[in-house]
């Protein structure tokens, strides 16, 4: 199975974030701390942001850069709405918010890919 270039680019982005945080690791007391920092920032900002931007026609560098502000927008707005309706801001609700704002665009992206691959194969 061929891996989409968007997924490869996301892999590279993930590697850069974790490798970059390794440099930060020189300044922090434990591996657990810098891994937690890298994972948290990756999961909170880049995962939802990158997923939503899959729906826009951007190149991989643009998508990787704008994933950070996009993730900030999506996760923080979802959590704000959560809190408005009375859901407490806890680790569980933060994870739930991120999963929601990630899964929905991912679903649309997968559907779009399926349609475009069908269209390509029928054209062939």
């Amino acid at each position, binding site marked *: 199975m061929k891996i989409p270039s968007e997924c490869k680019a996301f892999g590279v982005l993930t590697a*850069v974030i974790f490798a*970059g945080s390794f*440099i*930060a690791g020189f*300044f*922090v*007391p*434990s591996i*657990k*701390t*810098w891994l*937690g*920092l890298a*994972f*948290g*920032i990756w*999961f*909170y900002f880049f995962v939802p942001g990158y997923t*939503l931007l899959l*729906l*826009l*026609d*951007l190149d991989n*560098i*643009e998508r990787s*850069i*704008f994933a*950070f*502000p*996009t993730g*900030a*927008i*999506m*996760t*923080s*707005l979802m*959590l*704000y*709405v959560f*809190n*408005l309706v*009375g859901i*407490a*801001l*806890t*680790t569980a609700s*933060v*994870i739930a918010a991120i999963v929601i704002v990630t899964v929905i665009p991912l679903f649309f992206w997968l559907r779009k890919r399926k349609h475009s691959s069908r269209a390509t194969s029928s054209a062939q």
Partner: protein
Amino acid sequence: MRGMERWEVIAVIVLSLAAFVLMVFPFVKDLNSEVIPISLTYDNFYHPSMAKAVHDTQQNSVYAPYRVLGIKDALLADPPLPYSIPATVSMITGVPVYNMFAILVALFQIFMCLGVYAIARKYFNPVMAVFALAIALIPATYAWLFQYIIGFSTSLEAFAFVPMILFLTMHLYDKKSLLASVLIGAALSVQMMIHGPIECGYVYLFISGAMGIMWWRTRKPWLVKSWLAMSVSAAILGGYQFYLLNILRLSGENIAGTLFAGNPIPGYFPQPPIGWLLLALTVVGGIVLLLRLVQRKAPAAQATVVLFILMMIGISLSFVIGVDGSRTMRQYYNAYPFLVLVPAAGIYALSRLIKPRLSEGVVRLLEIGIVAVVLYLSFSPTYAELNGVAGSAMATPQRWQVLQWVKQNTPADSRVFYLYGFDHEFEMLAERVSLKGDMNLVFTQKNVVSLCNQQYPETYAGQWGAAFSVKPGSVNGTVEYPVYKSFLNYPFATLYRPGTTTPIATVNDEVPLSAVDYVVFQYQGSQVDPCMAYFINQSESRGSKVVWKNDQFAVMEVAK
């Protein structure tokens, strides 16, 4: 990926990581520490402490009670996201909120610079984009340190979405994406929820104007649809926040009054020096970009960026026509990653001039050499400033000890009076209802003057504190702070006046010492303070007792 492109990506990653390390680790010495890493100014205390309150209370709808006289459900009328984002990121990373706040400010700044890089790379030139990124990430002294020294981190975070908004607007020109329009609107609403209407206000007007000009020139109906999608998306949450901040909390005349009060640039604002080389390159780049604009050689996207830069220069200078200097000057610092596109264009234009006479490799070396000199001239004073700032934290270990003691050993609803030796920021960190005793306030100096004159005050001057400045009022020349009950409990956010006809307010008042539960004070510097020694002796003779002390500070439990 082509060879050249690979080198560009490597340069971008290395520059970003270098900036991250330089921006964070001079301040954050220990990532697991519970101490605020930057403690130079009021905002540097206020913002992280609000984030801590959101983290601890698990909500961002009402103030922590200790911020508003102990009221448990006062509506949070501050923009919530600068506090809820670090609070919730902290839950995922496990890094304490105070440190997370500082790290996120650096990340927002770095990704703002990267966003401008993405714009320049796509719509100008990839090499010029890397030059601009380098100058933006390692900038002149105060442009970099502004948010650390003055503490305008929320202004910076709100502006950090601007590159993305501009990029998506230009993406709209090419792709006509409705999702991009909705995302622009969401970004505008987040700007509103980070720093009120300032940044999102002028950005919304600019984007609307750009779309309007495009529509006027092309008459394409999708532009109208895109503008509507953006505006509706921005209004859904941004509109509510605007109501909360500017209708409920402020009144219309106060907004105008604040903006057009004719205040000059405050004296404590850094006046950034611009090196001769950067200035010369800016002149060259400015001429090139303006010529392209005037001669209509610039494509729509380039014209949009140049017009945005011109607008930011105009906003930064608008204090000369009476707009609040504090608000205009900070836009200069915010816009720095955009402004350095001009000298980067200057470097690129000069290298194109000499290119026909020299080989490609020599030209590239010359370009890198010029950028290196610009960075060196910027970096030297910046690094000196970083070390200076990092080494001048206001909160000493002795202060943190007493703060921790108060937090860990007094009831959560106790009232604490910081008589002497503390700044008003301290109440936030102790998380207790306070009677402010800030020595910076002339009003409260009479307490200490009286003690130094060996006269024990029957009542003490203080300021019962809600720690957000809202509405300059006229109650005996003091400041009035209306507090609103959370709309979650009361649908129309009625003014909360429990048992009184006057607003709950921060009021200057004089109360007997028995009105508070604890007094915190500094009794020893290089020698024992005779005024505080008198206070201890007299208070103990009246039944109060010192319950904790270190070599500088003491906590007294007040007899009832």
